[in-house]
């Protein structure tokens, strides 16, 4: 429903923007699903860039993944294995990922100078050190804002967690506004309250929506209120997501596909991520837990990487098969790595000094390895980078300019840390 009284005034767009948190883009003519036409929708999807972050929560060990140091005092019991890239070896815990190395870029010189979970997480997800004066938006909010479009019917920022207990999305969009905050999917289940309750029939739902709309429209007209209109639109948006509720149901995937990923939680979650990305969700983060291996580091990584290896490679193959890999940036990260020194409980502790991140997909040079650590992994010896450099790299990979600014309250805030720059060596 269009209400002409306010359409072209600055106050209207500000009000709308404030209420929906949307950017000031030109809106295509709206059909019920928000695309100008079904064909346009398909083209939109093909050219749309997406981001998938696999977050190894707790801090996965670089020595048991991307930068092994076998036969050294810190190396631990596992060996390294050759990969599909001659000269590049990774941990034997990742045999399938090793075969995909030609698609991966590995950054081994990460030094975020931070050994605590929460600040480490902030650094890796916002590309900035925590700052008491300003909260920076997470990569998910930035991606949803800059890569998404007004006509998107699905939320642009989704976070799949093992469980959503105590998780909050309240601060991840920062000044970009709540519209870009993550929708949290605990255990990969659909958003809370997405499904119509049993006590409400479809007919009753339609009728009550009609009355709600009627009342709201009448009210909005008499007050000439763009904010009220925007409030009503939020129900339309929720409805659009409701109508695509099946997207959140991984059980709808053909058995052949889900078998490739596996049946365990992380496998299902990553499969769900592929479903959502394929449907046009701009950013999905899938968290795998728990890598905070202060004790029994080796047993846990054996298990965890076992859970990671197969779904990760199935995911990359799946993206490739669907023609999505070249438009989807995939990042495997954590809040930090783990200490080379093995403690007295066979564990490794927090370590932001010399660790690794792996990337694949859109804009990434497959097979590239950048950065080196010394023989026993205690320091970066070549091409040291931090969370800021990585953040620049993600943005450049998907075709964005990290040197641009956001303008919250008309104040310029650089999208990425101006003190850093992209890691050109891994950009295609």
């Amino acid at each position: 429903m269009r209400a002409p009284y306010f359409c072209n005034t600055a106050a209207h767009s500000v009000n709308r923007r404030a209420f929906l948190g949307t950017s000031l883009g030109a809106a295509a003519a709206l059909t019920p699903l928000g695309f100008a036409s079904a064909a346009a929708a398909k083209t939109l999807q093909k050219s749309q860039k997406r981001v998938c972050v696999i977050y190894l929560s707790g801090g996965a060990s670089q020595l048991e993944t991307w930068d092994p140091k076998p036969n050294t005092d810190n190396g631990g019991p596992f060996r390294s294995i050759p990969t599909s890239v001659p000269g590049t070896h990774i941990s034997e815990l990742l045999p399938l990922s090793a075969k995909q190395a030609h698609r991966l870029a590995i950054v081994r010189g990460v030094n975020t100078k931070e050994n605590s979970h929460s600040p480490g997480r902030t650094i890796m997800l916002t590309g900035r050190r925590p700052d008491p004066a300003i909260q920076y938006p997470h990569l998910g909010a930035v991606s949803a804002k800059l890569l998404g479009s007004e006509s998107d019917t699905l939320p642009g920022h989704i976070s799949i967690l093992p469980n959503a207990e105590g998780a909050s999305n309240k601060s991840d969009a920062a000044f970009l506004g709540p519209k870009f905050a993550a929708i949290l999917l605990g255990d990969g289940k659909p958003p809370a309250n997405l499904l119509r309750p049993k006590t409400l029939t479809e007919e009753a739902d339609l009728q009550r929506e009609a009355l709600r709309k009627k009342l709201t429209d009448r009210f909005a007209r008499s007050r000439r209120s763009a904010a009220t209109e925007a409030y009503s639109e939020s129900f339309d948006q929720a409805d659009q997501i409701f109508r695509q509720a099946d997207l959140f149901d991984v059980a709808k995937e053909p058995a052949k596909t889900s078998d490739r990923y596996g049946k365990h939680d992380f496998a299902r979650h990553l499969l769900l991520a592929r479903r959502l990305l394929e449907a046009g969700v701009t950013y999905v983060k899938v968290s795998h837990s728990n890598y905070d291996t202060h004790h029994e580091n080796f047993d846990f990584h054996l298990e965890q990487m076992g859970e990671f290896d197969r779904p990760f490679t199935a995911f990359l193959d799946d993206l490739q098969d669907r023609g999505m890999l070249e438009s989807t940036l995939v990042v495997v990260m954590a809040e930090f790595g783990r200490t080379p020194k093995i403690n007295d409980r066979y564990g490794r502790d927090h370590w932001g000094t010399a660790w690794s991140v792996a990337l694949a997909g859109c804009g990434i040079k497959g097979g590239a390895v950048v950065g080196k650590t010394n023989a026993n992994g205690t320091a970066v010896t070549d091409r040291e980078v931090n969370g800021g450099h990585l953040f620049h790299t993600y943005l450049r990979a998907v075709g964005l300019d990290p040197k641009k600014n956001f303008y919250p309250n008309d104040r310029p805030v650089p999208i990425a840390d101006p003190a850093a720059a992209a890691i050109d060596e891994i950009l295609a």
Partner: protein
Amino acid sequence: MPRYLLAALCAFGSISSSHAGDSLHDRIDGLIAAGHPNFAKQAAPLADDSEFLRRACLDLRGSIPTARETRAFLADPASDKREKLIDSLLAAPEYARRMTHHFDVLLNERRKDVKVLRADWEKYLTHSFTANRPFDLFVREILSADGVDNEKRAPAKFFLDRDFEANIVTRDIARLFLGRNLQCAQCHDHPTITDYKQEHYFGIYAFLSRTFLFPKANLPTAVLAEKADGDTNFMSVFDKTKTQKTTTPKMPGGKPIAEPKAEKGKEYTIAPTKPTVRPVPAFSRRALLAMTLTADRNFARASVNRFWAFMMGRGLIHPLDLDHGENPPSHPELLDILTDEFIAHKYDVKWLIRELALTETYQRSSVVPTGLETVPEDRYLVAALKPLSPEQMAYAIVQASGQADADRTEAGAKAEGLTIRKTLPISAVFAGPAGEPEDSSTATLDQTLFLKFGPVMRDMLAKRPNSLVDRLSKQKDARAVAEELFLSVLTRKPSAEEITDVADALKAKGDPEAIHRELVWSLMASGEFRFNH
């Protein structure tokens, strides 16, 4: 006539529409009317009784009226019923609860408890507003609290739950109490606002920089302690010469405070001879902060502006934290008079709110008159819409749905606790992120799905003795259903068309109780409910 000329003429008194003998609320209306040509013709009429009743209850009680109250108010023939309503709302205990919610979110910004328990803090706020503590004394208490005395620890929450991070405290003091967002002035003079200088930022910072958390910053029982020395130096990141400047404590634009030079050896009342001793300086900069700030005219001005926005939906200076020369108030003379009067009335909050509530400006309708092409944002021709705060939304929902009424029927005197508990999951969904000024004007997917399908809202629609769904089931016809429904949820009588809508809905096949439930939902989910109009 350009606004600045009008203001200049007003200053000379030649066409001032405000006379010192009139009540403040009349003077306010006079100045508002003088602020726009043809005001009387263009402005909306006064709100009707329904609009006014709902607005006043939301603003002063934090919830909507009951259906019974609404019927009584609409039927009341007394010519002074609006004034009586305002007085009864201000005298009720819910006024203090409403102000507690408002000032808690304003001052504490939904931060998790770190060093002061929420229960103690809320009790402190409620007590302050029940007693109608003068606002300057209230702020003084907050800014002079050190958390040492357990009985008086609650007001220290402002400092302690920010971990006394001096930059955050400086920024928030300037923003909340002086109407100036000096954040950008931490590192350099503000790049676009010439009135906001780095020395203003550090003038406030200097009051705080000698203070630290004692004995250890991360202890939940930590208190504030202060050294007797330490200078505040600063440098602009834009200054290529890297000149270091220094400042002693002062308010923006104010004189540096007088600091006695202590005799050597007499700098402390309690000297930090050991790390376990909490130092007390002979002269405390932080103690002076409370007195100096609350005596500054900018404090009165910023406070009055915030109370004006609290009632009217928009500050005379807008935004509330950008008071500077190139952002003049929409009605400068009015702001000056309000500031003077607030000071003269010893920062009496209830008095101020009462005067604002009695104005025609406050009581104006939000319905845009058909002749009015564009509605300027700052002329008060039409009342502004204010989105309900998370707490208002929660309390309005439990009242509209009649769950509050059902609680009263079920539990009598013990009802309040039950009802308050019901509001918590609702306000949690609508609450903004911690540590940020709250902006209630956005709708997120979680909130919308919560309203549409969430179990909490389904529970609100439950039929319990005296809940709205229960009362609807007892109405004799569609008209009676429509009336009870609209009076309970939207505080007004339904129009003829709306009665027809309800009648049509009731004709649908299916369980009547289910139809009643969804009728209640439709009204609670409407824009009209979501906004304070």
